[in-house]
């Protein structure tokens, strides 16, 4: 039954994120944009005790056997997360990315890890100091075409350890997870370069592992508060059972696909972040224009609207459309339905919409929009990343196109 209402309980929980966004993130937004590579401690220190407590409660439930694998009805955990991401990104998208949690790496462990692996890698997020998780797929020569990656993992049969060698770039939270905390990074590498996709496996590399080094911290257009690094792996040894899923090279590319499954949740997550920035820019534009007496009169016919009013209305429609596409992909996950197509749809659309909306905002606000005294120009810079990571817009369109046309990867390149 078609219904657009977010469950009340989840709405109430979102209020806490709203408070963090307003009271903690917004006041430091500009500070960490200018102080690139500094950790936003106001935010991380505020979030950690709360997230730690949540993890602790989750583990208590798992250990007491309270979590039943078969549930009745939708699982709204994912919706809660998506809502939180939207709100925190409204606060500041770069700072949001510094949330001390297992992040994308955690999603991979949860998606394909064994129960032992989950306990070994995830439980640390319920105790001690702040920690981060990361995921390293991209390489200098393997971006969109990530299956051509060259980082290798070779089994040393004497010690029963994997030896990882290679280079990864653009890794979000790479430094926070590997150097500045006892977190971990899920590193993708091939165990058989001739096997293509089938040879690609993911390995958990823990913080402080010898041989890992930060080769470079990137200087970026936006989301400057977010930690983005290049990683070098030189004879990095990890235990045999740090490989996620099966270590066999199968004929099929099942392992690769398993890891790809994390995209079903991470693409709506990126879309939600995009929507949060879009809403920030939209609200600020509306408020500022209202001070100048420009408020949309929805009872006017289209041809009596000014160009500014028309733009504003289109910004509203596109913001809303992206959010609804995101909520749809999210609700499919909650209902346990496949959302591969819809996850790419919302990601492609939201990344494009937020790029346009924030650019329009800077345009409509004139000198005020371009000024670094307000946040509009920053949101325009932050927005663009959503058109790029978790699959560029083109890559997501490719996925949508293959799906609607019934084409294989070979038929539509």
């Amino acid at each position, binding site marked *: *039954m078609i219904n657009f209402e977010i*469950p009340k309980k989840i709405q109430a929980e979102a209020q806490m994120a709203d408070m963090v966004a307003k009271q903690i993130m917004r006041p430091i937004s500009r500070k960490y944009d200018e102080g690139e590579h500094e950790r936003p401690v106001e935010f991380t220190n505020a979030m950690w005790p709360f997230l730690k407590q949540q993890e602790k409660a989750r583990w208590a439930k798992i250990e007491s056997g309270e979590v039943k694998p078969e549930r009745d009805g939708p699982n709204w955990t994912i919706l809660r997360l998506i809502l939180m991401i939207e709100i925190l990104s409204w606060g500041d998208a770069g700072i949001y990315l510094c949330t001390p949690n297992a992040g994308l790496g955690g999603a991979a462990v949860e998606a394909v890890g064994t129960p032992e692996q989950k306990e070994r890698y995830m439980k640390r997020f319920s105790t001690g100091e702040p920690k981060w998780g990361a995921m390293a797929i991209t390489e200098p020569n393997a971006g969109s075409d990530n299956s051509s990656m060259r980082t290798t993992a070779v089994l040393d049969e004497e010690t029963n350890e994997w030896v990882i060698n290679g280079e990864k770039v653009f890794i979000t939270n790479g430094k926070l997870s590997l150097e500045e905390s006892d977190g971990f990074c899920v590193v993708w590498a091939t165990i058989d370069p001739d096997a293509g996709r089938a040879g690609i496996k993911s390995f958990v590399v823990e913080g402080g592992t010898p041989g890992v080094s930060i080769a470079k911290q990137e200087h970026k257009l936006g989301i400057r508060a977010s930690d983005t690094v290049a990683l070098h792996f030189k004879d990095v040894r990890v235990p045999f059972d740090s490989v996620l899923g099966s270590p066999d090279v199968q004929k099929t590319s099942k392992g690769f696909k398993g890891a790809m499954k994390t995209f079903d949740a991470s693409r709506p997550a990126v879309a939600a972040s995009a929507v949060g920035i879009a809403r920030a820019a939209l609200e600020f534009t509306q408020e500022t224009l209202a001070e100048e007496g420009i408020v949309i009169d929805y009872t006017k016919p289209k041809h009596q609207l000014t160009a500014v009013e028309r733009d504003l209305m289109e910004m509203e429609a596109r913001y*809303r459309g992206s959010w609804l596409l995101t909520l749809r992909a999210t609700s499919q996950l909650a209902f346990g339905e496949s959302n591969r197509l819809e996850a790419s749809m919302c990601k492609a659309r939201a990344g494009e919409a937020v790029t346009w909306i924030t650019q329009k905002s800077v345009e409509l606000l004139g000198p005020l929009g371009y000024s670094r005294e307000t946040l509009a120009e920053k949101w325009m810079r932050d927005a663009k990343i959503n058109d790029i990571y978790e699959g560029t817009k083109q890559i997501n*369109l490719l996925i949508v196109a293959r799906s609607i046309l019934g084409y294989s990867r070979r038929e*539509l390149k």
Partner: protein
Amino acid sequence: MLDFRLDEEQQMLADTVHRFAEEKMRKEFREAEELGKIPDDVVKAGWEIGLLPTGLPEEYGGFGEYSAVTNAIAMEEFSWGDFATTLRILGPNLVAMPVYLSGTDEQKAHYLPMFCDEAMPKVTAALTEKAIQFDPRNLKSTAVLDGDSYLLNGAKTLVPLAKDAELILVYANENGETQAFLVPAGSEGLEIGAKGKWMGINALPTYEVKLNDVRVSAANKLGGDAGIDFTQILNHSRIALGAAAVGLMRAGFEYARDYAKQRVQFGQPVAQYQSIAFMLAEMAIDVDEARLLVWEAAWMMDQGQDATAETTRMKFYLDDISVKVADQALQTLGGYGYIREYPVELWLRNARGLTHFDGIAMI
């Protein structure tokens, strides 16, 4: 609780309408457009699906409760079949809907039962005026109270089926507000003018209507003394038209998608070229996004919330993207898209036309 799935009844309705659209509307719509007439049996069969009675309460002979969401679902499927035929079949809604939303108890009791009859009532509504600056909330046609009756004056255009209509709901400006009046055919001073010649939607005959001192009893003012809630009527109308736009977009998208898969150039289907494939992907996203925007506004209306902002921005946005998608569908077919043997050029004309229908209320 957040959910984007049709319930069982909605799915059944969608399937029924879709079957009709595919088996009947899609078979006749091209000829109907060229001849300017929709076959009677198609209209009859469409009416017999009974969308209107499913949205009217039992006391008036219906068997349901009105839901803007359910209506949008049906509307999309109808319009996927053909937009002009949809307007023809759902023409009676032009009167039924405003009466249901704004009529007095007496007016409802008097007028609504005929919409649950087997025979399609011959009624229509006159809102649009021939003005570039047309504003449904600031009409040029006037209504002036004179004793216990109203005098109506003005000129209307795009009035569907006016020639055969027995009753016309005329919208006019009374002291700066849009009000509606039930005008019987043959009223003195009511003049049905020339049949309109349009770029598209010609299967549905529309007429100019002139009102020269047409006198109607004050009892014929919709909503009695209080009048109508025009914004609410307009909102419902825009949702219905939005859903129709989604149906049109989807028709174009699906046709282009299937065509591109079988049209071979340079040794492979053109769908295998990214510039075509990506265009189709964007079209697919446009269709889904548009539908969600329509449904959200409709759902808000069903919850009794004010959805004026949502409805307005949805309609204006869809006006743009429905024409864009229709154009992209045509582009996908290349030269064949320009040829009248193929449906897509008509869909482009209809999409353009749809943006000019504003405030023509339909359930």
